[in-house]
């Protein structure tokens, strides 16, 4: 077992143990624990173990580790904390909560993602506390028309059982499944319809999660239908089915596409890292002499590449390490190298050296969608 694995197992065990402890505490030593939900609880505990394990493994990859460290450094950078906190809120709101960057990729995709994301969030927010016994509802003793919500064993609030609050609360999962089903439908439509999406998708990676979400939502709805309108017809069977789908989803969580939920927030770290980069020195390409990227980023990449076993050092060259060469000059060197091999077969000769440093290659078409795809590209490709 490598060190990373040992460490990951350690973290996974610790976090899982922590969760177990919280369940014990929250349910007042299982007093409020709903035994019918025990399978759910176990699947979540399993998922927690798996997720923590994978997250730790992920963090131990050199580039991730570096970003993790640097992200926090950047976020906590002295003198910038207030601004960082502000932009943290802005970025969380726009990108995480509102999915701005996905909406920009495609409006409909953004909507799809918003629906699925908020549906799942709502469902999790309702079920997890219930499943762990952290929250339960019961009639107010002595007042049959009132209900109360008990959180961690403390009464949180009361409400009449025929009020709209009650209706909304007790049907929370129904609302969630509506959102999810709508989202899944949209996603399926896109996957079936678009040639492009069709070509790159994989069943396990792209369809499985959608099917799981769909199954969970539909069986959940069937449960509601069964006890609301059909006097509990087939209730046991449906609840078994529902349990299976939910458990399946949780068990799948650490392995499949859902992992991105936990990975994605790293984007925030990256944005702070880039902020920090902009404050510092620029890297200068050692072929054309122009500024590109941040010096910090280049140095970090050199370190990461070394850890990964890449040997981009160039002994005896003024460039020292290939990472000091900007992307356009990399492309130019590549093509020049190929072209030179043809010098005796085809016409033309190496031009006399008049530039020192080498001329900066220029994007042939700087237009929309043809050259750089954004300001950042433009910076790296120094327009």
């Amino acid at each position: 077992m490598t060190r990373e694995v040992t460490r990951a197992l350690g973290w996974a065990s610790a976090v899982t143990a922590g969760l177990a402890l919280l369940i014990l505490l929250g349910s007042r030593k299982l007093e409020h624990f709903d035994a019918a939900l025990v399978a759910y609880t176990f699947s979540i505990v399993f998922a927690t173990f798996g997720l923590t394990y994978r997250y730790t493994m992920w963090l131990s990859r050199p580039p991730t580790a570096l970003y993790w460290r640097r992200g926090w450094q950047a976020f906590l950078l002295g003198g910038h904390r207030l601004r960082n906190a502000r932009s943290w809120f802005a970025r969380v709101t726009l990108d995480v909560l509102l999915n701005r960057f996905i909406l920009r990729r495609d409006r409909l995709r953004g909507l799809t993602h918003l629906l699925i994301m908020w549906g799942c969030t709502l469902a999790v927010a309702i079920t997890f506390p219930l499943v762990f016994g952290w929250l339960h509802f019961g009639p107010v003793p002595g007042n049959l028309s009132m209900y109360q919500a008990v959180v961690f064993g403390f009464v949180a609030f009361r409400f009449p059982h025929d009020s709209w609050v009650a209706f909304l609360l007790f049907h929370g999962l129904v609302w969630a499944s509506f959102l999810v089903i709508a989202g899944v439908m949209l996603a399926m439509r896109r996957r079936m319809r678009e040639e492009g999406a069709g070509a790159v998708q994989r069943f396990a990676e792209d369809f499985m999660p959608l099917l799981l979400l769909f199954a969970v939502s539909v069986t959940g709805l069937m449960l509601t239908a069964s006890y609301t309108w059909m006097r509990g017809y087939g209730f046991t069977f449906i609840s078994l089915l529902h349990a299976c789908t939910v458990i399946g989803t949780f068990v799948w969580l650490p392995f499949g596409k859902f992992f991105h939920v936990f990975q994605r927030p790293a984007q925030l770290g990256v944005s702070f890292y880039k902020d920090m980069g902009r404050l510092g020195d620029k890297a200068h390409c050692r072929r054309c002499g122009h500024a590109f990227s941040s010096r910090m980023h280049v140095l970090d990449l050199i370190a990461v590449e070394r850890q990964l076993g890449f040997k981009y050092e160039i002994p005896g060259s003024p460039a020292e390490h290939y990472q000091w060469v900007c992307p356009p000059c990399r492309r130019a060197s590549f093509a020049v190298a190929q072209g030179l091999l043809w010098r005796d077969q085809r016409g033309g000769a190496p031009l006399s050296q008049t530039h020192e440093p080498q001329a900066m290659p220029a994007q042939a078409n700087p237009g929309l969608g043809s050259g750089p795809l954004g300001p950042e590209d433009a910076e790296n490709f120094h327009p």
Partner: protein
Amino acid sequence: MKSPEVAADVPVPGLDLDAIREFGPFRAYAQDVRVDSGVIPDKQVKTHCCFCGQQCGIELKVKGNTIIGIEPRYDFPFNRGMLCPKGVKRYLQQAHPDRLLSAYAKDSNAPSGFRRLPYEEAIRRVADEIQRIQTAHGPNAFAVLSGASLTTEKTYLMGKFAHMCLRTSNIDYNGRLCMVSAGAGNKKAFGVDRAANPWSDILETDVVLVAGANVAECAPITTNYIWQARERGAKVIVVDPRITPLARTADLFLPVKPGRDTALFNGILQLMIENDWLDHDFIARHTVGFEALAREVRAWTPQRTAEVTGVAERSIRRAAELWGTAKSSFLMHARGIEHHSHGVHNVLSTINIVLASGRIGRRGSGYATITGQANGQGGREHGQKCDQLPGGRELANPEHRAYIAGLWNMEPDELPQPGVDAYEIMRKAHAGEIRGLLSICFNPVVSLPDNNFVRAALEKLEFFVTIDFFMSETSRYADVVLPGSLQEEDEGTVTQVEGRIIRINKAVECPGDAREDWRIIQDLARALGRERGFTFQSPGEIFEELRVASKGGICDYSGVTYENIEKHDGVFWPCPSETPAGIPATSAQGTLRLFEPDSWNPIARGAGPFYFPDGKARFNVTPYVGPAEDVDADYPVILTTGRVVSQFLSGNQTRRIGPLVDHYPEPRVELHPKLAARLGIAHGDWTTLRSRRGTLTVRASVVSTIRPDTVFVPYHWGGRKSVNQLTISAQDAISKIPEFKVCAVNVVKADGPPEYATQLEPQQ
């Protein structure tokens, strides 16, 4: 320095902001249904690109009445899936926001200068004006300008309309700025005007000589043919004042000084004679006139040639040796040597070295001019040239007149006499001799030289009508604009660079009031009360008549059918429906290669492979004459013009396609660092060019890939960005092609950005 001699009444091109606001050019990008990758096209229509004479095969993907994308035709033998960027993005011209959806009439009260007009009313008005002008001033007072991007059916109809319906002598076409020098040269030397070989012959040749053709940008697909020849070991020689992308890795590059091509080829021929790199047998059996020519070129020693052409003597010697000793060879040229006041001589001087080598009319050896426009070949064959009748017949030839008059059911005497060329039409308009003009598929305000004069001429017309799909710079001068059709909105045939007749298929319907050009012409004939001969129901019917009209002519299409075109991926003319007894019938694919040793043609009738009664090709004496306007102390720099790969001709279409505009947004002047240094101009500086005719301010592009005595500006833009404000209207005596490729200018750093810089988008 003398200031430019601009006549006081010449209107300086305005910024036309209001017209631009209403009619564009605006850039279209793919959006909505065109980027929705979930949309499945209703159909995919096999057709060809609408730009350039190579006519690459493409399929248009159609959804509803919108073309949403393209797919190259991998099976079409010419391009086999290859396309240039224009072909890839051509679909964006359709369903374009600038598209003219109705007729317009000039209205000085409307902010844009135009108001909409119901179609019928517009036709009525045009017919009335034609009637009025012709009654008052004679039939020749109304002229017609046509174009070579139309299908051959339409070009036939335009010629017929002018000659039969309007009875005017004055019809000419925009090929006058394009193909005529090559055409005249080919006629003089070979008796026929068509690429002598199919492009597949390039693949098997040993030496490729490219003269005055920026193949990479103007005929991109030809590049692969040349590169493939080189894979087999062929040597590539490029003659050009600029290091074009092809020239960069060519085996030999001759940076000729603009306007000195005849001298260069005379010099090469002299070296061939000196070293006896001649095919004496071929010269003796198949040509006439070699001795006279040999006497003429004797004076062209390598030293003198080098001195005049500006090409290193050693390179000239090497070129002569490569060419002279080759086993097989292919020579091609384009506007670079043709756009001159002695363009025909330039062409003939290249043909001379081909004939002297004897390498023509066989597999792997040949000669061709690279046509520029979509139907540059077909458009110059069937009667829309000022002196021409269908089938490559001549308007001045009584026999030809009789044949066509018979077909058209009129007396030969009723056919008008040959008229004048396109530029002369402008001069006559300026002089008040021509008072009315109909223009289709032509944008003279951008494309003719000295276009300040052209503007003035158009302003003087009593009545000017255009048929256009976008409001071109020229249409802005019209009294009535009729909404015509885009290539994809109509069907027909065109003849591409190799002489291959191909099918253009209709993919979408004309939007709004717009309709197929041939319908508009027929509507006009009807409104004029002369609809006899103009009642075709489809392009197919026009083609059937065209077949008969061309029968027995040089450009014989009589054996060509739409079915055979589809079946064989094109038919090469001549393709006569019948041949005399004893002569094998022409294959269904037509005649791939001209001048094959034992071939038959209707002129030589078996006497030899060339299209003269004796069957022999002609050597033409080509004395060198310099350009009409050479540099002097006041205008010390040579200006040459040309194209960029992303734009097509006057840009009326391509300046509306966003991704193509981004590619090369605005005209720039290319100049050598040496010249730039002397003038104190840095890369990107606003630079003013002045000629005796006009002024142009554009940004400088300082590159060492151009001769230091020459500057280059591409010509696709209108208004104040048009380089044709500066060019000279001197014309070739024979072909009447204007001298776009040489004039004298004065170059200085501009004081600041020109007015348009802040007011116009790059394409406008």
